[in-house]
């Protein structure tokens, strides 16, 4: 039974907050932001090196930074923050105590030690094997050990989440079904368990191989299993940031999903089918049958894509329905024009949704088609795609919710509010630019992993079209813009936590961060129950036209580079 002295009541949401859970949310969020700061700096150096006129770093340093960048932002930032989301979505939203807080701290320490160990190995310079760490490239044993420790810690976090669901149900802290945001977090936790198990299956033998205890690891076997971790870890992000979209829409506008049942079915599609999208990384591997490749991408993956499309309708639809309830009913788009664009939480959420759908979603489906994959496989198109999903999508969404977490969990006002208003736009534009220009360069054939697109020391000369060089320069400029947005975020958040004005109990009235009914909407099961959403339907129509045109253009392009007669 919960000890009432371990709870406080949030003056903004009215929800009871379990203090041990609050401390863990803070610790995981801070660790995540530190990883983002380091990984973002490394990413800037990578972008400036890929800018052919600058080529900031020498080759060895480039690969060291690229390795650190991938690990710090794709694993450490994201998963630390996701553990914070799991604790928030279980203990706080279900009004429950967190299961086994001491064990949760053990998990946090393991994650922190693991992240530090892997970073230490990377900065030693003998583990520049990049995020994928394909064998037979061999890193220091500490590199693999750090990732394994981090994964074990994250797995503990997942099971703390599951155990908290059990406690909440047993102690009847909620009635009926869990709220949608918690269901989204559940989806992320389930995918995380599959991801971490896959990582353990391949990284433990690889650690033993790096210690010379195992003679060899089959490279193709490694790739198959590693991608079950490497790509699925990004599917945790998708589930978590979709949950964050619903969460922000609910908290800021009191928006409920159009149909809770349909949105939960969309999450079910993720649980069952999203992980197998990993197969698109292996679409050109010889030795694996087309049956496996096509089933796991062009058939079953589309079921998960349907889930994303449902969320793509439901989230803006929920916003439109909530805005119309508030009286913004003129024309198709008054609800959108008069949305709270000056609120960084809302602005970050909505732009993340647009970038993720238009850039990350469409390009992901194109890459998942075996034939189309041939024209962009292992080019810069691939990082272009996942910068749209993970940076413009997940990272921007996580930044957005941080603008709610700081006042609600830390009880501090956001410092530099004008800077905060601009931050999501600047970071989002930079991230979208990185994605677009990398995808453009990749379409022109620029290699995904090569330090020097001039191939200056190659025995046989080769040059990309001039447009590719322009794309790489624009990618560098976009990287600078994203870095400025990233620095703004870190400065705002760290300053607010350390020096921000304390948020008193009356702040819920004088400076509200939660919309009317926001606390109730986010923590309960319920639907808007309407489809009278003309604006959202037009937006969805635009999306489908863009989707169709881009898909068609790529088939046209394929027919030109691969003529059949």
């Amino acid at each position: 039974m919960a000890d009432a002295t371990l709870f406080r009541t949030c003056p903004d949401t009215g929800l009871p907050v379990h203090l041990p859970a609050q401390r863990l949310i803070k610790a995981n969020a801070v660790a995540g932001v530190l990883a983002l700061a380091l990984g973002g700096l490394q990413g800037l150096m990578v972008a400036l090196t890929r800018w052919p006129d600058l080529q900031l770093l020498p080759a060895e340093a480039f690969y060291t930074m690229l390795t650190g960048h991938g690990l710090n932002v794709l694993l450490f930032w994201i998963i630390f923050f996701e553990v914070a989301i799991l604790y928030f979505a279980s203990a706080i939203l279900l009004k429950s105590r967190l299961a086994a807080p001491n064990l949760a701290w053990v998990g946090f320490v393991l994650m922190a030690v693991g992240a530090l160990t892997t970073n230490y190995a990377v900065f030693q310079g003998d583990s520049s094997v990049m995020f994928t760490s394909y064998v037979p490239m061999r890193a220091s044993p500490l590199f693999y050990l750090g990732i394994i420790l981090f994964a074990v810690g994250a797995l503990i976090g997942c099971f703390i989440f599951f155990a908290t669901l059990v406690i909440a149900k047993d102690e009847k802290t909620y009635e009926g079904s869990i709220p949608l945001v918690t269901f989204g977090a559940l989806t992320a936790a389930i995918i995380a368990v599959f991801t971490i198990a896959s990582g353990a299956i391949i990284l433990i033998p690889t650690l033993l191989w790096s210690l010379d205890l195992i003679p060899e690891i089959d490279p193709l076997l490694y790739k198959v299993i590693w991608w079950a971790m490497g790509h699925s870890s990004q599917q945790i992000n998708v589930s978590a940031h979709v949950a964050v979209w619903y969460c922000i829409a609910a908290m800021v506008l009191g928006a409920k999903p159009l149909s809770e049942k349909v949105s939960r079915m969309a999450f079910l599609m993720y649980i069952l089918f999203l992980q197998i999208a990993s197969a698109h990384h292996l679409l050109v591997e010889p030795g694996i049958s087309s049956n496996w490749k096509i089933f796991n991408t062009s058939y079953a993956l589309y079921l998960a894509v349907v889930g994303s499309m449902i969320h793509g309708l439901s989230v803006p639809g929920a916003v439109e329905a909530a805005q119309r309830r508030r009286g913004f009913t003129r024309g198709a788009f008054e609800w959108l024009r008069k949305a709270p664009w000056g609120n960084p939480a809302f602005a970050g959420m909505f732009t993340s949704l647009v970038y993720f759908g238009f850039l990350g979603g469409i390009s992901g489906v194109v890459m998942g088609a075996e034939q189309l994959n041939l024209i962009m496989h292992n080019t810069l198109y691939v990082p272009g795609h996942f910068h749209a999903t993970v940076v413009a999508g997940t990272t921007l969404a996580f930044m957005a919710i941080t603008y709610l977490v700081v006042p609600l969990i830390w009880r501090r006002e956001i410092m530099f509010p004008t800077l905060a208003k601009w931050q999501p736009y600047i970071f989002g534009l930079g991230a979208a630019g990185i994605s677009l220009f990398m995808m453009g360069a990749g379409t022109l054939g620029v290699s995904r992993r090569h330090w020097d697109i001039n191939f200056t020391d190659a025995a046989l000369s080769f040059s990309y079209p001039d447009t590719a060089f322009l794309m790489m320069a624009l990618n560098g400029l976009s990287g600078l813009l994203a870095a400025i947005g990233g620095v703004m975020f870190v400065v705002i958040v760290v300053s607010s936590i350390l020096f921000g004005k304390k948020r008193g109990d009356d702040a819920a009235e004088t400076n509200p961060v939660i919309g009317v009914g926001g606390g109730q909407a986010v923590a309960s099961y319920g639907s808007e129950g309407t489809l009278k959403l003309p604006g959202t339907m037009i937006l969805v129509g635009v999306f489908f036209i863009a989707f169709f045109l881009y898909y068609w253009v790529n088939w046209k392009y394929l027919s030109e580079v691969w003529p059949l007669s």
Partner: protein
Amino acid sequence: MRERNIRSSAETGSGSGGTGDEPVPFMQRLLDNHWLLLLLGVAIPAVLYVIWGVMEVAQIPLAQ
């Protein structure tokens, strides 16, 4: 009739199990069973992607 009751349950925020006597639909029971979802979410990709993929690799003949 049952559909109307489910809708009513959702709109009042009570979700499954909140309306007493009405039978809870199969899909809602599935979605409320977190451990079954965990099993499905691990087993399906494990079979379709990992095990099938490893079998594909294992069947490649060794070079002589």
